[in-house]
Each structure stands twice: as C-alpha cells, then as structure tokens.
C-alpha cells in the first residue's frame, strides 16, 4: 500500500474507445433489481448525496434551510439516513457548519475560483485555505481546463498538488468538468493527472454546464480509479455531479459502481452523487414502495 513515487507520462494515458465505452455503460441500465434490493439501493443513494446549493443568490437563510433538509429528509418516513454532505460556496461554510452541528453531515466547499477556475494560483490557495479555516470537511476544486487543453499537464498537476497541500486534513475532490474536456481520452488523462497529484475524489462536473455527469464519462473515470488502485494500492473516491435527478438513474450508477469497483466502494466515503433534486425523487420512490400509491411533489419539501 505504498503510493508510487514515479509520476507517469500523462500523454501515455490509455486511449478510450468511445463506441465501446458507451455500449458498456448502457448495459448497466439493463439489470433487473429485486424490490428489496431496490429499496436498499435507494437508501444507499440517499446517503451518498452531496446536497448542493451553488448560486450567486445563496443567503444564510437558504443554506440553513438546506441544512435542515439534509438532516430531516422526510420525517414521515422513519429511519432514513441523512445525506452525506452539504456542498456550498466558501462564504457559506461557517453557516452550514453551525447549522449541521454534530449531525455527522459533512460540509463540502467548492473553491479555487469555482466554477471557471480562471484565477491566479495564490488566489485559489487562499480560497481553499479560507474554506478549510471556516470548517470545511471537504474541498471541491476545479482544474484549469484551459491549461489542460494547451497540454500544460505539469501546470495542472502542480496546481492540484498545491491545493491538496492547502487542504490539510480536508478531503480533496477534483472537478474535471468533463463537459469542457470534449473526449473520453482527455477525461481519462485528466483523471490520471488528478489522482497522481493527490486527489481524494475525482468528480465529473461543476453542475454549471451541460453536459454534466453521464454514465459513460463516469465509467471512464471509474476505470481510471481501478487502474490506479491496481498500480498504487491507493483507493480514490468518485463523484458524478449534475444531471442525475431520477432514482432509476441513480440505481444504474450504483450497479455500474458495483460492477467496476466492487463493494468496497459502495458507501459514501468512496462514492457521492452531486445533486439537488435527486433526493426528493428517491424519497418519492421510497414512499411509493411503502404506501403502494404514486406520490406527488406536494408532499416533499423543496428544501
């Protein structure tokens, strides 16, 4: 379990067969899942959610409200888990931290000039340090996609490493913004860079653009995690974010996770969903299973 000291040549990252990976990803959607397993899967998915609000108009009130939701997903259904974390901007970390208290729900903060990442390195480092000092348990950084496209992989690598250092004990999620990378080859390469540079998580998207997370992109990243694990013995976590709003899709992701990385990854330490509306869809499915009748959004609080 010793991390390798050798940094590979990232231009040699494996190339991805687009058609193959998309076909493979679509097959995970064809599994039949028994009812009881489905309910367990839905509860697990709930517990993996990073409930997110990342708006310019975020206020203390909005964040407190979301923190309430994180701890009381649906009081009419006893025994539900909480979500994994609340994801906010650095300026809201303190509010969230206080509102969540000792509930066990973590506070994640985006940083490094999220979502574009177009700022000097020292600004990004300060942004990160600020969030950590306010109490963030996890930092979601964005990579410099411009530099990545220019082939300056060392720049991207060094930046991630520097942010990782600034994180201290906070876990670092590295957002690739796959929608801006363009090809699966580049997604794979960016994943490799992030993992070797010290990422604890690799994450698909900011959620600020479309396309965000897709199953094939996530599959490419999961396979990168698997290869990295075989090479270094180090486990990396995964977070698809954006565009996952239906329970059925969340279950497809869990099937894929289980079949690519295995049971070790099937918990919220190693896998997260970045989503805001997924929670209510899962709650509606769970209530449908419990009561036998189709539900209405009127019965589930927005936040």
């Amino acid at each position: 379990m010793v991390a390798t000291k050798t940094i590979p040549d990232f231009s040699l990252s494996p190339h991805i067969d687009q058609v193959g990976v998309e076909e493979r990803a679509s097959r995970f959607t064809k599994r039949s899942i028994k009812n009881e397993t489905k309910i367990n899967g839905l509860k697990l998915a709930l517990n993996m959610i990073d409930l997110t609000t990342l708006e310019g108009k975020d206020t203390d009130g909005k964040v407190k409200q979301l923190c309430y939701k994180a701890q009381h997903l649906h009081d009419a259904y006893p025994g539900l888990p909480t979500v994994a974390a609340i994801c906010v901007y650095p300026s809201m970390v303190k509010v969230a931290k206080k509102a969540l208290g000792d509930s066990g729900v973590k506070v994640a903060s985006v940083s490094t000039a999220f979502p574009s990442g177009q700022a000097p390195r020292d600004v990004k480092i300060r942004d990160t340090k600020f969030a950590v000092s306010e109490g963030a348990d996890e930092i979601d950084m964005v990579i410099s996609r411009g530099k990545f496209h220019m082939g300056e992989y060392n720049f991207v690598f060094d930046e991630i490493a520097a942010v990782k250092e600034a994180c201290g004990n906070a876990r670092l999620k590295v957002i690739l913004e796959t929608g801006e990378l363009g090809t699966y080859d580049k997604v794979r390469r960016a994943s490799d860079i992030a993992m070797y540079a010290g990422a604890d998580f690799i994450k698909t998207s900011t959620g600020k653009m479309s396309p965000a997370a897709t199953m094939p992109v996530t599959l490419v990243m999961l396979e990168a995690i698997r290869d990295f694990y075989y090479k270094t013995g180090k486990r990396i976590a995964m977070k698809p974010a954006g565009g996952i709003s239906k329970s059925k899709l969340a279950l497809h992701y869990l099937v894929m996770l289980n079949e690519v990385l295995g049971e070790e990854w099937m918990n919220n330490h190693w896998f997260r969903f970045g989503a805001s509306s997924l929670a209510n869809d899962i709650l509606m499915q769970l209530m449908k299973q419990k009561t036998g009748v189709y539900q209405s959004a009127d019965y589930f609080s927005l936040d």
Partner: protein
Amino acid sequence: MEKVIAKKIAAKFSENGSHNVSEKRLEVLKTYKIYVGGQFPRTESGRYYIATNGKGDKLANMCLCSRKDFRDAVGTARSAFGGWSARAAFNRGQILYRIAEMLEGRKAQFIDELIKQDSTAVQAEAEVNLAIDRLIYYSGWCDKFQQVFSSVNPVASSHFNFSATEPTGVVAAIAPQNSSLIGLVSVIAPIIAGGNSCVILASSSKPLCAVTFGEVLNSSDLPGGVVNILTGKVGELIPFFADHMDVNAAVYCESDAANKQLIKEKSALNVKRVVIYDEVKWMTDKAQSPYFIMDFQEIKTTWHPIENIGGAKAGY
C-alpha cells in the same frame, strides 16, 4: 442509358391507360398507439389487446397500457398544467376552435372508424358532427365562464373581496365506454377549456377514434401533455386513476357500483375531486353546459384592503 430505363418504367406504368394501384398495392395500416406528452409512444409494457367489432372481427391491435404508462402520463400532465393554465383564456378558446377545425378536416376518417365499430353511416356522421360542434361550444365558453361564475362579495369591512375560478389541476378520467368519440370529446373539452390538463383512458371496446383524436389534438397547437390518451382495460387501471397522489380530480362515466365505490374511497386519500357522469346521454344537448367546466374549477377568494379617507366607508 438511364433515360431508356425511365421510359421502360413509364411505359409499364401506363399499360391499359393507367397503372392500377389498388389491385396490387398492400394497404398501409395504421398502428394504433397512445398519445402522451404530444407524442405517440407504445405502452412501456409491450402488451396489446385486440379491438374487435360487435361480430368479433379484428379491427386493430391496441396498446394495453400499464400503471407505469399512467404514472408517466400523469407526470407529463403535471408538467403541462402550469403553462396551459397560465394561457390567456381567449387563447385556450382559439386552440379549442382549432381542434374543431382539424376534426372537421378529418371527418371522413372518423366516420369510417365509427362504422367499423358498429355505427350506421347516419349515426356515425351525426356523432362526428356533434363532436365538432361540442368543441366549438366549449371553445366559446373558454373566456366566458369565469365571468359567469365569479363574484364580487359585499363584505362588511373595508375590503375589495372577490371570488374567481381557477383550474383544479391534473384530471384523470375514464372515458364513457359505450361511445368511441362523442363521450371522449365531451369529457375532455370542458376539462381543458377550464385550464386543466388530463389523462384519459379511452373506451376499451371502442378505442379507435380516441387514438385518431390524439392525432387531431397533435395538429391543433394544443401543447403536448395537456391531453394524454391511453388505451387499455378499465378494471386494471381504475385503482391507479383513483389513488395517484398527484391527481387532483377523478372522472368516471359508468354506473358500475363497485367501480364508483372504489373511486370514491381511493380518491379520499388526497381529497381528489370525484366527478361521476353515470346518467349523461352524450349525444344530447344535456351533455354540454358550463357546469361541466365548473366540475374542475376551484374558487379562490381574495381580500384586498380599500383605503378609507375622511371617514366615508369605501366598499363594493
């Protein structure tokens, strides 16, 4: 070279004066599908049943919709409700008029389908004519029933107090089973005239016109999802029509006591508005009135203060 071939083909087609198409051609039959969200999907279940006429001759394969089809249709009806209810009443009237125009243009097809389903030619024409007229009737009411059924209330305090109509929301309806077209149209028209969206289960035994009516709706500027038409069996789907929590009103048009009871009981779960039309003769004038629109309207009362200057009480 190409010209020679073209000439040969032309010659072949003009044998005996003109090419006789009807004898050699295989007729293209319509696949009857369902109408959901402005599209014509098949049932998610992949099941079908065979629609027959009274003698038992096969007419077509129909989708045998499942509860999941119904759930999906309610979802699209809910999404469509906001936009449709926010349309200007006059605009809804224009669209209902447009539906009538489109139906008029495809009259022959509907008459043909009605005859296949055991109507005489005379009955069939009368039914299609009345369906068109009924749409025109409700088209006219779209921007008038509000004025008839709203009120300004003479309250004692200094408030402008008024009560106005508003659509109930998503309506789940089981269409009259003994008619193919007029029952369906008579139920749908007042629901959408009032700004609601709906999911309707066509007559199980006479389903052809319902699907073709979906095609009429689809070419009438009616936004997708406002009307969703399913085909299938009443007995299988009725519990879901009544207990879906995102449905605001349920309509049943038969006199089956057990089904009426079931609808009433299950609707109580979320206090659905239950509307039962078990004695309506759809081919008569009694089957149309603004009260049918009011079956799917809520009354909202607003209290607005009136400033009171110089001691003189102001009010209406």
